[in-house]
């Protein structure tokens, strides 16, 4: 791809109202939620909206989308973590949604704190011209990065994944967490508030709160998103999207009506026919994403597709940070170029499996619908195979 002059991106954004979304997991779906909310509010004027719906979220992808719709005055942009600082500087966004920070592609981003620092510095530099940030209060690194923004709307997303944050991003001391809440069946229902054991960094009080299937708004009213995409993490994404939509001036009921039209954002959670089998496609890019996606894979046979191309991360060691043990007793098909690494992981997890490296072949001959969980590169190939 052409190396884009960052100034060109600034020119393409100029004159538009911009909302951007970043984070490791959930940015495509959350961006779709916000775009759908805005579209609902625009009614017949949807041509005013530009949205990089297919997840092309680097400088070039964003610029290409913007250049195709020069007249759209509202831009809802999924933004790669590495592009956030540039776009804050050049794009003067009105709203910036920061979802979460998780280790991902460690062969390229060996330390996630550096990315957080780039966000923090960009927001500090933007000062009073900077965006209002909608930020996940459950994530210490997000909170630290967002602190320098002129205004932050904190969202308590009821996140339960804590394995990427054990030290304070501000001072390096251990973080403390309240005991997480558990439901009657023992599953985690809330991650528990956190604070630093040494400095003053702590979970900020939230304006929006996820409570089970509902979102509590700043005025105390409770709304039920009733989404058409699965998973508690999508309720969290919807809470962030709702906050962003309201900042853009969208009525909350209209925002939710719009969000309910989102069914398969860039193929995620979509169902397709591949090699004659019915397959639902779930994307999981890192241990945090797998922790969310695997419980959604409820079919008797589950297909897991692994690759180690640049977009997947070339080191597949992360397979050992995913609790595949939960698939014990199910029928698992390991596929993709790194299927054999997964096969060894499954053997040590005590999970019965077949290894079929070819994706199309792995999807052949399933009489009942199968859930497929895939890393980025095989996910895109499966979308193509299924026409999603």
């Amino acid at each position: 791809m052409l190396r884009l002059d960052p100034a060109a991106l600034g020119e393409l954004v100029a004159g538009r109202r911009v909302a951007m979304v970043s984070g490791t997991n959930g940015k495509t779906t959350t961006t779709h939620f916000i775009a759908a909310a805005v579209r609902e509010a625009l009614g017949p004027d949807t041509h005013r909206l530009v949205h990089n719906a297919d997840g092309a979220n680097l400088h070039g992808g964003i610029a290409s989308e913007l250049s195709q719709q020069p007249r759209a005055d509202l831009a809802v942009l999924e933004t790669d973590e590495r592009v956030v600082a540039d776009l804050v500087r050049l794009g003067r966004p009105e709203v910036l949604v920061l979802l979460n920070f998780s280790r991902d592609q460690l062969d390229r981003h060996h330390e996630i704190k550096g990315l957080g620092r780039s966000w923090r510095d960009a927001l500090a530099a933007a000062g009073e011209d900077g965006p209002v940030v909608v930020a996940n209060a459950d994530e210490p690194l997000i909170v630290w990065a967002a602190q320098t923004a002129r205004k932050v709307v904190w969202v308590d997303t009821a996140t339960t994944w804590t394995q990427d944050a054990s030290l304070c991003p501000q001072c390096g001391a251990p973080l403390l967490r309240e005991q997480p809440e558990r439901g009657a069946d023992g599953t985690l229902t809330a991650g528990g508030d956190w604070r630093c054991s040494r400095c003053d960094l702590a979970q900020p009080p939230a304006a929006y709160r996820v409570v089970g299937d509902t979102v509590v708004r700043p005025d105390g009213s409770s709304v039920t998103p009733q989404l058409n995409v699965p998973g508690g993490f999508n309720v969290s994404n919807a809470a962030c999207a709702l906050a962003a939509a309201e900042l853009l001036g969208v009525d909350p009921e209209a925002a939710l009506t719009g969000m309910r039209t989102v069914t398969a954002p860039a193929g995620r959670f979509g169902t397709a026919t591949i090699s004659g089998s019915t397959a639902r496609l779930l994307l999981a890019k890192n241990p945090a994403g797998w922790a969310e996606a695997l419980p959604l894979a409820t079919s008797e046979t589950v297909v897991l597709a692994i690759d180690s191309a640049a977009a997947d991360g070339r080191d597949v060691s992360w397979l050992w940070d995913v609790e595949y043990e939960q698939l014990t007793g199910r029928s698992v098909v390991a596929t993709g170029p790194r299927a054999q690494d997964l096969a060894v992981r499954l053997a040590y997890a005590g999970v019965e499996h077949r290894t079929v490296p070819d994706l199309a072949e792995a999807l052949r001959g399933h009489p009942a619908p199968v859930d497929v969980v895939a890393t980025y590169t095989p996910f895109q190939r499966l979308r193509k195979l299924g026409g999603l």
Partner: protein
Amino acid sequence: MSTPSLMNDVAGTYGPGDGPRVEVVLVYQSLLGIYGDRGNATVLARRLAWRGFDAVLTVVEPGDPLPDTGQVYLLGGGEDAAQISAVRALQADGGLHRAVDRGAVVFAVCAGYQIAGRTFTVGDPTVPGGEDQVIEGLGLLDVTTTRGPRRAVGEILSRWRRSSGAPDDADDSALLSGFENHGGWTRLGPDAQPLADVEVGVGNCADGTEGAVNGTVIGTYPHGPVLARNPALADHLLELALGEELAPLPRPEIDALRRQRLAAVRHLR
């Protein structure tokens, strides 16, 4: 308030448990756990259980004392701040030194390997306040780590010296495969022996050696996790800890993975 309790998924008792009890201790997963190295603990516990041992996997976090009952202690890779936090907690605890004194095995990967040495250097010259800091290690291995001229990232293949201390050319079972990802370059002192000789990759400091051995303390760079990709090394650790020879454990899926990774990395050469 309490520190997060992680790893509930892997800690516990493995296998039938008719045989002797063997305890594997995974040290500070919350600090040294970002590169999947907990897999080394899963591999050791399972390989013990498959052989009928009563395998117990204990996960210990900073603030809790290291148990004095373990036969194998595992350290993994982590970020700079976590690495400093981990080494200070281990120095305060002292349990790892006691374990080595009574002959237990310490297997340390990447940041864990650096921690086990005499000193290591952290810092990020690209950020303000990121100046180099030299940190005192545990001194369990006669190695010193400083910042290298470039980050070593990629598949690595080395030939294990086994116990003989000489390269073992007999067959592919002595080849160690993994993925290295480290900015520190490690140099061995006179008391440490290299674990292996590099065929593809950087290893300790691009001097042709990889890892270090001091008695029952072994340090190495590769993730993978390295014991999942190299079952012979996993069994060597167990034999060292138990003082007995173990029967082979044929697993066709591991053989297939090794063939695949060796072919892939040799293609890079």
